[in-house]
Structures are given as C-alpha cells and as structure tokens.
C-alpha cells in the first residue's frame, strides 16, 4: 500500500476539487437513500392514517411536507448525479494531466546518465497502462470507499438514535461485514492474481513475437503447430486467471450485498419489539430498512474497484521503481580528478577506458583515444562492439565503468552540465516529436532565425522538399501529421543536431536510411558546415562516415 503514497499525495494537491466532488456524490447518494426511505415512511404513515380515517377518527396528517421532501430528493438526486459526473470527470482529466506532467518532470530531473539508453517500446506501453490504472484511483476507489464508510457510519448513528443501541449494533456489525467483504475481502482474494497480470501479458507477448518471427523456421522444422498450441494454452491460462478474478469479484459482491440486505432484515427484526412497545411509530419502523436498501448503490461499485486494486498497486510499484533515481552514478566512487593529467589540449581523452553493463560481458575494453580541438575522428566497428556506448560516453550521457575519461580536461561529472551544453549528439535512434517541423528544429536552438533553419535544412538536402510542402516549416510531423520516410526523419534529426550551437559534434550512424547520392551531397555539405568544430562520427563501415581526418576501428 505504501506504493500508493506518492500518488495519493499528488492527487491530494487537488484537495478542494476532491472534496467538492465527494460532496456532490454524497449528496446524490443521500438523496437517493432519502427518496426511498422517505417514500417508505410516507406510504406507511398514509396507510396508518388511512385506516384511522376509515375508522372515522380525524387525525391531522401533513401530506405537504413529506410530499415536498420526496420531490426535493428526486430532483436533488437527478441534478446531483449530473453535476457530480461533469465535475468529477473534469477532475479525472485534471488528475490525468497532473500525473503525466509530474511524472515527466521527475523523469527529466533524473540525470541523463541514470537512464543511459532510450526507453524501449514495451517499457513505454507499460508506462501508459500503469498510468491509466492510476488515473481513476480517486473516482473508482478513494471516493466510493470513503463515502461508503461515512454514510454507513451516519446511518448507524441515526439508527442508534431512532431505534436504540441494540438495533444500531446489529446493523452496524452486519454493514461493517458487508463493507469489509466488498473491499478487503475482494482485495485479498484477487491480489495475487491481478498483481502478476502485467508480467504474464509481457511474457505472453514475448512468446507471441517469437511465434510470429519464427514462423518460417518453425514451419520448416514442422514445429509450428506444437508451438501454436503452447501459445494458445498460455493465453488461456492468463485469461483463465482473469476469469477467476471476475468470478471472485462476483461472489464477494454477492456475499457483500447479502450481508447488507441482511442488515436491513436484522434492523427490522430488532425494532419490531420497540414498535410493539410503542417506542417508535410504524412509519419510523419502515424508515431504516429502506434506507439500508438504498446503500446498495454505494456498495455495488466497491468489489470491482478492489478487485483491480492489486493491479493498481503493482502499477504504482513499477512507476515508483522507474522514476526512483537508479544507482546515482554521480556519487564519486573515485575522486573527481585523479591520476596523470590529460593532454591539455585534448577535448576528449579516453585512458584505458572500458564499458560494461552490469552482469554482462564488457562491450568495450582498454580504449585509448585522444581527440584534439577541431579534429574530425571517425570510429567504425561491427555491431555490438560498443559504438553506441562510446558515443554516449563522448556525449556525456554515460561514464566508463573502467579506466578514465576526461572531457576538456575534466574527469567524471565535473563540469558535466557545461559539457552537455557544448556538445551536440545525434543518437543512433531518430527521435522526432509530435509537433511542427519548426518546433522540432527550434529545440536545438530556440533563438535560431528563419534563415538559420532553411540553411540547416539545405545542408541535409531537405530545403527543396520542405519548400514544396504547403505549410513549409509549419508542417506537423509525427502521428497526427506528415509521415516522414526513415531517411527524411534521419535528416531532420541530423539538421537539428547541426543547429545546436556546440563546439563538439557527436554523430552516431548519421546516414541511416539515406540513399547513396543524397549521402554524398550531405557529406560534402557537412564538411563545409562543420569546419572548425570537433567531430566524432560513428558508423558500421567507413563509407557511412562523413569526411574525417582519421578513422579508428574499434
């Protein structure tokens, strides 16, 4: 449960809205409860009075007050429901934005190094799902539970006042039982199954991908049908678990509503004696059981919400883990400046540097490399040889796990901020945003002029293409806009990297997806544009490099 705390605190920042929303729900529920109870009271009172009339006695009976009450409750219930839904939906949308903006800020605060690599697609989709399950935390879980407890308590107090301690105790105990069954009971019965659901689906997804990508090989080996059966069996197991959760929610819900109705029965049973003793009137006798029936509306939503709580907790746990600063590589295990001084004029100097992901064989061992100001160095190597790790280290996104690295003469994190500001890094994966082309470019340099933008687009041979677009620089890119080809997107990313006013340029596979002739033109343009800057370019082969002074094979 502690996993939910940070999120509850975040949701709590909208305390005002939450209280108003809860009050609106409470008003609706109380009106519903009141409508039924008062109607029951009115009918019973009418029956008693009617019999008295028939017997000839003239009893005074005010029909206007209860009549008015019934009408008011009916109206409040309708209007309250509408207002509650509009208001609370707006709250949910606000919370949704709050959660995302705050999560984004925490992710952004985390040092670039701690995250190391671009998040994978499956991580992102899990993040979305996890956030989705937190969005309705307030509306599905907190508000109904709080209200159920509050209204139940109020009802018990009122029944203590009207019917005495005995009736109040009996109803109180039974209603508490119903409440516990609908919340804690359901949670306990489902938490194990719902907690593992995400992992189960992830592993199922892995197996499905394997089945699909391996179709040819599986078919060739006559193993496809067997694999297909296994896949269906695993999917069935996962769905079966979910069905089990649904069934448990159903049975616990039924049990809870049985207890709740039984409380009404018990209330009636215990208060008949008081009626006979003339301590309460007939209409009052009808009041409590009917009010309890009205509680059903509050209780009915609880089992479903608590049946999903296990999943919500797991989601919160994953989110907490993902945004918690991981390992803090900034802590200085070694002194910031150590050992022999680097070359005074080296922009970058790797000394016997190595890189290794925890628990895996090193991807880079014993690298010595000096890059002087204005030097253009190309680095090539086969896949998996540590090119991208080296690029990350050069750009200041990672530190070597072995040996030393000095940037502008500084070791480790000293001056990392300045370094990041002075280096422009084109990562291996192309990352454009759902926004206009202009805004995508301006990220690199918010002060760039129109001229600068066209200039850099010409450098990557995109100027003509963009001029032909109806909205030119204001063309929207991404999911809702123009779909760029892989090569076009790569060039936009390259243009953006070039636009950043930096002295050191790190390009990782800059020409992915570019055809040979475009590549030649871009290489020529680059040589002009990058004059005087320090360049590190990484590629799988020398012909995929821009013009460089020397090539280092990794």
């Amino acid at each position, binding site marked *: 449960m502690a996993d939910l705390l940070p999120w509850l605190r975040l949701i709590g920042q909208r305390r005002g809205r939450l209280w108003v929303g809860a009050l609106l729900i409470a008003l609706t529920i109380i009106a519903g409860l009141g409508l039924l109870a008062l109607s029951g009271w009115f009918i019973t009172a*009418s029956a008693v009075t009617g019999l008295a009339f028939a017997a000839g006695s003239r009893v005074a009976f005010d029909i206007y007050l209860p009549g008015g009450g019934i009408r008011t409750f009916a109206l409040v219930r*309708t209007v309250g*429901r509408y207002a509650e839904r509009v208001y609370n939906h707006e709250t949910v949308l606000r919370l949704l934005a709050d959660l995302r903006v705050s999560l984004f800020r925490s992710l952004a605060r985390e040092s670039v190094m701690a995250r190391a690599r*671009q*998040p994978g697609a499956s991580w992102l989709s899990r993040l979305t799902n996890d956030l989705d399950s937190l969005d309705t935390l307030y509306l599905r879980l907190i508000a109904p539970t709080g209200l159920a407890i509050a209204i139940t308590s109020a009802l018990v107090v009122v029944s203590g006042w009207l019917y005495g301690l005995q009736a109040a105790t009996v109803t109180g105990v039974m209603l508490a039982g119903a409440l516990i069954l609908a919340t804690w009971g359901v949670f306990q019965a489902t938490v194990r199954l719902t907690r593992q659901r995400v992992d189960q689906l992830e592993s199922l997804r892995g197996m499905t991908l394997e089945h699909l990508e391996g179709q040819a090989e599986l078919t060739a*080996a006559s*193993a496809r049908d067997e694999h297909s059966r296994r896949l269906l069996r695993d999917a069935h197991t996962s769905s079966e678990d979910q069905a089990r959760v649904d069934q448990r929610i159903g049975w616990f*819900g039924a049990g809870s509503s049985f207890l709740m109705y039984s409380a009404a*029965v018990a209330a009636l049973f215990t208060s008949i004696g008081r009626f006979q003793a003339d301590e309460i009137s007939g209409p009052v006798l009808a009041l409590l059981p009917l009010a309890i029936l009205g509680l059903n509306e509050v209780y009915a939503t609880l089992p479903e919400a608590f049946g999903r709580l296990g999943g919500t907790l797991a989601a919160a746990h994953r989110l907490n883990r993902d945004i918690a600063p991981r390992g803090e590589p900034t802590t200085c295990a070694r002194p910031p400046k150590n050992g022999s001084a680097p070359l005074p004029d080296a922009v970058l100097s790797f000394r016997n540097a190595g890189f290794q992901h925890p628990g895996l064989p090193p991807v880079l061992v014993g690298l010595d490399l000096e890059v002087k100001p204005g030097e253009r160095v190309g680095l090539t190597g086969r896949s998996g040889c540590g090119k991208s790790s080296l690029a990350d280290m050069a750009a200041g996104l990672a530190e070597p796990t072995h040996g030393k690295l000095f940037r502008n003469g500084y070791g480790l994190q000293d001056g990392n901020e300045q370094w990041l500001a002075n280096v422009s890094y084109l990562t291996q994966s192309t990352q454009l945003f759902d926004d206009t082309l202009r805004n995508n470019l301006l990220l690199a340099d918010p002060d760039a002029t129109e001229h600068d933008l066209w200039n850099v687009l010409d450098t990557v041979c995109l100027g003509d293409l963009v001029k032909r677009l109806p909205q030119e620089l204001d063309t929207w890119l991404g*999911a809702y806009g123009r779909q760029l080809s892989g090569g076009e997107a790569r060039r936009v990313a390259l243009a953006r990297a070039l636009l950043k006013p930096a002295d050191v340029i790190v390009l990782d596979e800059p020409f992915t997806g570019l055809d040979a002739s475009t590549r030649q033109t871009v290489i020529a343009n680059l040589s002009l544009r990058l004059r005087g800057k320090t360049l590190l370019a990484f590629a799988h082969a020398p012909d995929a490099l821009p013009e460089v002074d020397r090539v280092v094979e990794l």
Partner: protein
Amino acid sequence: MSTRPPGRAPESARAWLKSLAHQVASYRRGAIVAGTAAGLFTVLQMAALAYIIDRAVISEWTAIDLLPWFIALLLALGLKAIAQGIQAHYMARASLAARNEARSQLTNAWKTAGPVRLLDESAGTLAREWIDHVEALHGYFARYLPQMSLAVFVPLLMLTVVVWFDWLAALFLLLAAPLIPIFMALVGMGAESLNQRHFEAIGRLSGQFLDKVRGLTTLQLFGQTEPAAELLQTRSDDYRRLTMKTLRVAFLSSAVLEFFASVSIAVVAMYVGFGLLGYIEFGPAPQLTLFSGLFVLLLAPEFFQPLRQLAQHYHDRAAAVGAAQLIVLRLDHLQSAGGQPEDATFTPITQPPACTRNIMLERVSVRFPDGRTGLSNCSLVVGQGESLALTGPSGGGKSTLLHVLAGFIKPTEGSVTVFCEPPGTEPFAWLAQSPYTVHGTWAEHLRLTTPTASERAMIRALEAAGLGELLRSRPEGLHSPVTEAGLGLSGGQARRLSLARVLLSEARLILLDEPTAGLDRETEQIVLAALQKLTGEGRTLVFATHHPSLLGLAHRVLTVQAGEVSHG
C-alpha cells in the same frame, strides 16, 4: 486514435462479434438465466419485506409471529446472492471462451497465410492484435452482452408483477416505457459519443506524454525539458476544455434516464400515499394496502436498475467494436488469396524412375494474384548432398524459388518434389535474415525447432555459431534466459543464434535466404565456416546470395532472373 481502420468495418465487425457470441451462447444463456433468477428473487425479497412491514404495522404481529416470513426473506436474499454469483461465473466464462475462440481464429489465419505473407505486417502489430485487441473484447462478452438481455427481461418481470398488484402504479412506471426505447438510443448515442470523446482525449493526452518521454534524452541533450513540461501542461488543459464541452452535453442523456428513474419513484410514492389516504377513488387505488403499496414502491428502483447498469457497460461495447474491426480486417486480409496462389494442384509423381532422392522442380510457374510472375516454367534438379547457390537481381525470383522449395508458396503450375514428397513434408532447416525476438532460456530457444536436442549438441552448436563466450558468461549456462537485465541480443548475435538452430538441426535439406546480408565481418566468417561444414556433412543446401565467398562454396550456381533460371 491511430486505430481507426477505413471503410465497411463496423458491420462486419458486428457480424463477427455476433458469430463469437453465438459460439459462447450457452454461457451467455446461463448468465441471463441466473440474472433473471436474481431479478425474480429480488421480487420475492421485496414482497417479503413489504409483507413483514405491513403485518407488523397494521396487524401488529410480533417478531416471533413473523419469524417464518423473516426466514423466507433471508432465503430469498441467499438465493439471490447465489444467482448473482452464478451469473458472474457464467459471464466470466463467456468472455473466456470468446477470447479463446478469437485467438485460435487468428492463429489459424496466420497459419493459412503462411510465413511469407504473414510478415508483411510487423510482428509487433500482429502480436498486439492477438493479445491486446482480443483482451479488449472482454467487457463486451462479460458485461455488455448479458446485460443487454437482462435490461429487457428484468424490467419486464418487475412490470408484470406491478401490473398484477396495481395497474395504475404500473402505468406510472410505464410513463417512462414509451421512453425506454428512446432511453436506450439516447444512452447508446450519448455513451458512444461520450466514450469516443473521452477516449480520444485520453489517447491524445497519453500520446503527447509518451512522445515527450520517448524523446526525453533528446530534450535533455538540448536542455529543453522544462519548456516541454509546460507544453504538456497547456496541451492537456486545451484537450480538457475541449472534451468537457462535449461531455457536458453527452452526460445529459444519462441524466434523462436518472431523471425518469427518480421521478417514477416519487410519483409512485405520492400515488400510493394518496391512494392509501383514500384521496384517489378510481381504478385500483381504493384496493391499495400497505403491503401492495410498499411492494410497488420497492420495485420501482429495481425496474430501472438494469437499464442504468447497461448504460455503464456501454463503453465495453465501443471498445469491443473498435478492436473487432481491426481483428476482422486482419482475418479477411490473411485469409484472402492475397499473395498465395490458390488451387495448388499438387500431383505427386508416381513413376518410380522420376522418384529419386532428389529435389525436383518440373515446369514450375508461380503467378501472384496481383499479376506479378514469381517464376515461369522453371525446371530444376538438385541432387542429394548438393550445395546450390541462387543468384540474380533482387526481385528476380530467388526468394520465390526458395519459398516454393520450402512449401511456403504452392506453384500455380508444375510440380515439386523434395525427396519424393511434397515440399514441407519432411522437416528442413531454414535460415532467414529477419530479426528474432528471443524468449526464455537458451535451451528452450534452441529446442523450439529441435525438441530432442541434447545439452551437448546445443553447446556445440552455440560454440560453432560463435556464441560460446556469451553463453559462458551467463551464470546458469544453457538454462539462463537469453536476454537478461533488459538487454537484448545485438543484431549480429541474434543472427548467430538463428545459425545455431540450423546447426543443431539434423534435417537433410537446408534453405538459406541471403544468409550473410547485413552481417558484420566476424559473424559473416562464422556463417561461412558453418555452411562449409554443413556441405561437408553431405546435407543438401540451397541458398540465395550475392556474396562471392558463398558463391565459391557452392557446387553449382544458378542465376534467377525475371522468374527464369539459367546456369551461370
């Protein structure tokens, strides 16, 4: 947001959902019967409750006198709870069965399409359909569909009972009745547009958020995270305002339902009250008793309850129809003739002289439905133990020839035999150049295609594929997961793993499509050495390639160009 396919989809999606519903009809019927029974017990419960209050207040019976009635009431409550539990059971089962059926339909369609056509679409998309889109059907079968019937049966049941006791009160409930179909439509339309709006807004918001998170490193590299956070905030606010505008209207439809439910209760209460007071002297009013009056009042909210529940489940339907559209499109696409030549009339060659232990193609032609010619009139004999290279321009038919030999594509004309049998009858090994997601341990992975492989053989194959070092670095060797600590294999490593599977296979025929394309030099050398070894073992190899060293390895090189084979 991006999941809206064009065209005729809704009808066929609904038809498909209906056919699934038909398949799970027994579970659904169970749910409806149990739900109706729960409604019946509700009626009994309310009757007992009203009777007890009536007797206690009017006839002044004691609690002891009323004990049998209390027991009856508890019995009704218990039976109702059991019926509700059973209903939940059947609803969950219905959804389970429907999802299983949908999944096996998709898996069968994958099989029908064959490996070549299947991966026209990315495996990720297909997997998402198979997992997430099928999951999206859950609410429809588990909640919406049974509720759809219950929203008719249960109110009718209540109404019949109320008519029996007091037709005038029933009339008040029915005040709303001509409106019920309108309710349903309103609720439907309202909920539909509400859902669309709501989900669209949420979709766009998550999209914006994801977009920023995906590019977080980029934003950090350019020092632009705070402006991005502010942009996220303003865009969220914009979407919210826009959505709320529609939601305010959309919620009105459910408010109408709510209004009639409340008003009906109020009107019934007033009518019964005045009737009991003797103010109403026509119709059944003078016969009203406290029992019948209370009973009718208690049934009034229950009359509307199923409808209100249906409104709540409406978004399940919208979600299912959306998912079903995509699934149906996929099923149609995969099952349509597409790129697979139909009516492959395979005539086994029975003449003994022709049936040697060879691979024989006789006058084989492949024409795709879109008019392209894959192969034309191609005859070929590959001897057992021969190593044959196919070369030629891309699109010339090399892959098609391999696919024919594999049995992935059936020839439009002519005949193919592989060791006297139709292609694909005897297991063979296949090495493709596509990447492969690896799931599970090394041993599990290798046993995918060679289930009986021994540990020694597996280690030998991995060593030969140049993965020995990587394997030794893993704590549990063959039984440790291939991908650990969230780190996948590099492209080259994944290819070597595929090679290890081929090396492990004992198949006589090995087909390889561009085995060295896009490989780094080291992996390339490993592949060459492995193929050399396989040739030496007397296996039959057919591979498409441009690679000079590979061509040198072959006993014979054929050029495939414009669907025709020539000796080159």
